[in-house]
């Protein structure tokens, strides 16, 4: 199957790749480009482990074909931290023990970042509603919700 050339931006870096038309964005991110922080849990849009943002919009990368990324800007979990340190959401997840096995964590982090980007002061209810697209089987969610509440406060304080 002949491959298609795609030009895109990933974590603020211009990136180009070749892919088959049938390959999902998740597959290209993980297998072609090595962004294995983005996880596959169901490959049908029901668990949120593969969450990334596309031009700032939270999506399941398993539900999008990689060719559709042409000209778009993608952010993955690998883009959350910067050379100065972790993003406040990452730090809060660590301090609150908001992960156990950690497989859903990248998706929760990306989804939480997307939440705070458009709602810097979410209530617990709003957090639980927003994150309902991400499944975690280990934590029972409590510590995740607390971590996001605290991260929101940290982000606001530093804004």
């Amino acid at each position: 199957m002949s491959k298609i050339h795609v030009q895109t931006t990933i974590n603020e870096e211009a990136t180009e790749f070749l892919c088959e038309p049938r390959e999902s964005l998740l597959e290209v991110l993980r297998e072609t480009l090595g962004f294995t922080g983005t996880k596959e849990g169901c490959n049908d849009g029901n668990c949120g482990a593969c969450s990334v943002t596309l031009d700032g919009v939270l999506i399941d990368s398993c539900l999008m074909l990689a060719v559709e990324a042409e000209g778009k800007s993608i952010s993955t979990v690998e883009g959350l931290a910067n050379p100065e340190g972790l993003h406040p959401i990452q730090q809060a997840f660590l301090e609150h023990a908001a992960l156990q096995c950690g497989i859903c964590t990248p998706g929760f982090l990306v989804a939480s970042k997307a939440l705070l980007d458009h709602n810097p002061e979410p209530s617990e209810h709003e957090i639980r509603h927003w994150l309902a697209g991400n499944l975690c089987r280990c934590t029972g969610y409590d510590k995740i919700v607390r971590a996001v509440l605290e991260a929101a406060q940290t982000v606001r304080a530093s804004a």
Partner: protein
Amino acid sequence: MSVFTSKDYPDYTDDGKYKVIGTRPIRHDGVDKVTGAAMYGGDVRLPGLLFGKVLRSPHPHAKILSIDTSEALKLDGVRAVATADDLVDVVDKLSNIGETTVNVREIAKNSLASDKVLYTGHAVAAVCATNPHIAEEALDLIKVEYEVLQPVIDVRKAMADDAPLLDENRTTRELGEDSGKKSNIASHNQHAMGDLDEGFAAADVVVEREFDTATIHQGYIEPHNCTVWWKKDGTVTVWVSTQGPFEIRSQVAEVLDLPVSKVKVMPCEIGGGFGGKFPTYMEPAAAIMSHKTGQPVKMLMSRTEVFQATGPAPGSYMKVKMGVKNDGTITAAHAYMAYEAGAYPGSAVGAGAACILAPYNIANVTIDAYDVVVNKPKSSAYRAPGAPNAAFASESVIDELAEKIGMDPMALRLKNACHEGTRRADGTIFGKIGCIETFQAAKDSDHYKSNLEGANRGRGVAGGFWFNGGGMSSAAISVNDNGTINLNEGSVDIGGSRASMAMIVAETLGLTADDINPSIPDTSSIGFTGGTGGSRVTYATGHACYNAAEDVKAEMCKRAARQLEVEEGQIEYQDGRFVCTSDASKTLTVKEVAASQGSTGGPITGKGSVNAGGAGNAFAVHVVDVEVDPETGKVEILRFTAVQDVGKAIHPSYVEGQIQGGAVQGIGWALSEGYFYGEDGSMANPTFLDYRMPTCFDVPTIETILVEVPNPASPHGIRGVGEVPLVPPMAAIANAIHNAVGSRMGELPMSPDKIIAALQDAQLSEAAG
């Protein structure tokens, strides 16, 4: 708005007795796991990697007449195929794989079916190719001829005399003896003590109820994966997300008929397991194809494959009869338990039978346990395997006893609670346990003392028991010259256990958790360590880590003596320092001893090796408030408190996390999760869309109360904590629903349709007067 911070989480340092244990340091693998750097099994990349896919049976029960792979092999990019013909003929042999025992021949048949397929999703053949899409296309080119047979997917139907047989040669083992009777009932076992008739005769009130529970799945978010490289030197290396690297090693070696020394398992980070990631599934096929090609073969399951071919926890049918005196003394109990083993024998009914009435001191008890094969995937351990089904039945009946004699349900449980010296029906005499303390803490909780008001709202409570495990574990320490510690230990870290292991070592050597660098090496680089299951890791591997740290401490005493030029016996370890007993001015810190190790005798190392008996049993009590919507049948969890004897909380955040996670899995089991089967005998809902696990929007904060009754067999009092939180929720929620709307729920899940049906039944019987 209240914002919780880590400062709001209390320490459990026993009033300063401990400096590290009981605090909440950031886990050592945390940064990797929040930045995407952690390497899980699915992230493995190797040179020349091939990708394998499995062809699975579309029928729940059929004979395989022929398999033709010739067309698949002709497809461009396909490198090899594997079928059962490629497997050596493995004989019957039992192998312990963590929480369950399995027959190696059945592991082989389950990984590639030979004569028969026994469930929809049973692996029939595998293909590997240069990319996964080609492998998938090749599956369509494999021709399999089946003779379709009548399936049986319900435990009671499978037990009937005229049921279709999964295995024509299987006969029931009746109380340990071969009955000679052909049946899907693999075994019937019984625990009995006292005199049941006498016990029921002494009762003022007797309640008997039937219970059905659906097949459910562990639901780990990471699908099964493996990468196998059978190299030219005859060694087989397996990268896999598993709870039990050594159990995978033994299964792979047995199925491939290789010595264990030829197999090396590289434990990757694991994305959840809950008991379901002990068995091998795709490793034998991947190994065969790697052998044929000389290249590594990677295989990943889809979510549908995970549902159809792995896991599940057994569906069950149970009947529980109990008698109580008006003063609250439970006089007798009979439990009939039939669990679905799936395609091959070995459901968790044995453990369930030992757990079902364990929290109570009852004189007259009989427990009958049936292990029954059905056309479903081979069942696997799931968090306190067998005990949650059992507790749903027994704790629902106990609640009804309390209601009928007009006694507070917690008071009834407390009155009958077991204690040190109580004999369980399976013959075990309890050691030091915290059953009473746990019930009492639940009774004294703010939640239980609070008032619950409002229409269609109700409160339920239930207790639960799990044994907890011990067994073999290994740890090895090397001391760096800057005084930090490299800790190798054999337990795969499924939920923060590296941190707990490091904390135990840090506490022992007067260091900080950050001074310890914990790793989990491959099976060729650490001593045997039983898998991460059975709530055994913090207790058993923690003990091995403690022994390794004590070993280092003893060596450091000798080195300090040399460094200080005093007699060996004159050095004592005191609070992070090595002190000369005859001259207290002569002291060295751990870091100072470490810095001089080259000149005092060479590298300082220590080892710990245990076969830990004396695991401390776990008890949990859950209190839950619900609101039932009588229009839709939806049950909302308003408040949930989980109380548990944890022995000693090493890292309290991860102890709380285990409890919260288990409780939420229980909410799913109670209300929304279940395999649905169509007329064709195939699972109708093998996706996360239709198999509904709780999201964060479905559940409230799970409040936790940690009770610490130390386990005397552990240097720190540790008991396991991971599994028992899944035992009480289903009954607690059922009892809350009854309290809210007056209906006794006998079926799991208690989904809206069943709630509506129960409410309609109640209305009908009310109308009938």
